[in-house]
């Protein structure tokens, strides 16, 4: 058990005398089907879903999950066959109440950015999804916050959607898919970062149906899942190299479900390359690692478990910032982490407390 979480009674943790609610930066809400969005769409888009045999949704993860309960942990499987994560009551019981989590950030797995065609339709889907989140999740549970879904292929429309949805303070970040086919650092996408900064929102990256590896879609899911941090790495490198952090000086970025033990390697290599190759990107004013340490946070999940837990703590120390990690469950997925178990004893007690709670509270201004 994480040393800092002392369970007093079911669902309430204390650190000494003080209640210690956990912040969870990655919970997934799901549509039961794309038809849930029909009430939130105007024509001409509504009927594209409403008709029989209409649009079924942006492309999802193409693998058949080999686990006994598919992509979900067993507890999260629903009775009526709807997707895990589609029932608020189960999220309340299995995440918020069970672990005294407040708040939890909902990260949509519905990414109109992956619908790389019919751009106006993709934009309308994003708006509808944000309205659906408000009515079906945020208005019904005050311990939830959410990400804003956008269709990033239309950055000016995405910026308008960020302004519109971002006026509701329960939206705390903009979510972009960690994809292999574009780098979001390119100036083409800057309206999104500009709007996020203007609305004091974090920009987060999370995997999607468009997430690939360096070899595309390898034959087995285990190959894909082991290699996908390449997508976050490429996106992070691009944000630095294209000068996004120089241009948007208040911008904050969250890497969600990317894993994090690769970060020391990336910072070392990137800094070294910067000294040799700075002339190519002279608008980048500082060592890449400095932007990463100061402006980027990572979710804990999926934690990695070396045989010696001290090794994991040494990896953390190499990053050089106690503020760097934020706890996440990734509920309802099979690689879920429990806040009671995720952090090994090698992590000092004060640090556990920061990771489970304080770092996210400060980053998102909760």
């Amino acid at each position, binding site marked *: 058990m994480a040393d800092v979480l002392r369970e007093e009674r079911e669902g309430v943790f204390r650190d000494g005398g003080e209640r210690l609610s956990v912040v969870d930066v990655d919970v997934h809400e799901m549509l039961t089907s794309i038809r849930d969005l029909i009430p939130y769409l105007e024509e001409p888009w509504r009927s594209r879903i409403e008709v029989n045999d209409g649009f079924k949704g942006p492309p999802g993860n193409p693998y058949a999950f080999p686990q006994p309960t598919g992509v979900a942990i067993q507890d999260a499987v629903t009775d009526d066959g709807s997707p895990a994560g589609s029932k608020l009551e189960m999220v309340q019981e299995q995440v918020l109440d069970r672990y005294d989590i407040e708040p939890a950030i909902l990260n949509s797995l519905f990414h109109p950015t992956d619908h790389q065609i019919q751009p106006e339709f993709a934009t309308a889907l994003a708006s509808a999804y944000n309205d659906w989140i408000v009515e079906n999740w945020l208005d019904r549970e005050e311990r939830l916050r959410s990400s804003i879904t956008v269709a990033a292929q239309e950055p000016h429309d995405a910026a308008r959607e960020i302004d519109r949805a971002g006026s509701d303070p329960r939206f705390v970040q903009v979510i972009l898919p960690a994809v292999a086919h574009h780098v979001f650092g390119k*100036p083409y996408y800057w309206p999104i970062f500009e709007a996020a900064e203007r609305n004091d929102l974090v920009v987060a990256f999370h995997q999607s149906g468009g997430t690939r590896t360096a070899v595309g879609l390898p034959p087995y899911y285990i190959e894909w899942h082991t290699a996908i941090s390449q997508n976050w790495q490429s996106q992070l490198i691009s944000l630095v190299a294209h000068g996004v952090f120089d241009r948007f000086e208040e911008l904050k970025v969250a890497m969600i479900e990317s894993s994090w033990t690769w970060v020391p390697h990336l910072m070392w290599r990137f800094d070294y390359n910067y*000294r*040799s190759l*700075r*002339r190519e*990107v*002279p*608008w980048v004013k500082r060592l890449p690692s400095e932007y990463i340490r100061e402006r980027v946070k990572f979710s804990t999940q999926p934690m990695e478990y070396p045989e010696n837990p001290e090794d994991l703590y040494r990896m953390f120390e190499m990053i050089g910032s106690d503020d760097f990690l934020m706890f996440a469950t990734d509920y309802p997925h099979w690689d879920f982490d429990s806040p009671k178990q995720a952090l090994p004893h090698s992590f000092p007690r004060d640090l556990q407390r920061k990771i489970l709670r304080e770092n996210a509270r400060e980053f998102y201004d909760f």
Partner: protein
Amino acid sequence: MTSREAVRRAADSREARYVLCGLDEIPPGEVRGFRVGGRRIALSRLDDGTFRVVADTCPHQAAQLSLGSIERMWVSDTPGTHHQSENRNVLLCPWHGFEFDLETGGDPCVPGRPDLKLKTYRVEVEDGEVAVYL
């Protein structure tokens, strides 16, 4: 390259004065190496005709810096654009391309790292000769 040995001790200084070459022997934009007083130094002539001297051994992997090149440092405040600095000149290592500011000897990417800084030396043009004080 080694210097033409023309060593005179300045009577009122503990610095040793070494004449490296005649004023016109090094054209603007070039850098040349010398071994004087037991040290390897790199003499650069900037495009305004003035001279700078720094240590000639790269603190990274010990390449001879005088085999590299000098330029006005590439700078930019706008992503996607490049222009050359009005006043900063850098020496580029011939191996991995690290840059060294010819005024301070520091690497502009890591100005706070003393272990990655080159020693700089005073250089003067005197009577048509380029002299360094070590």
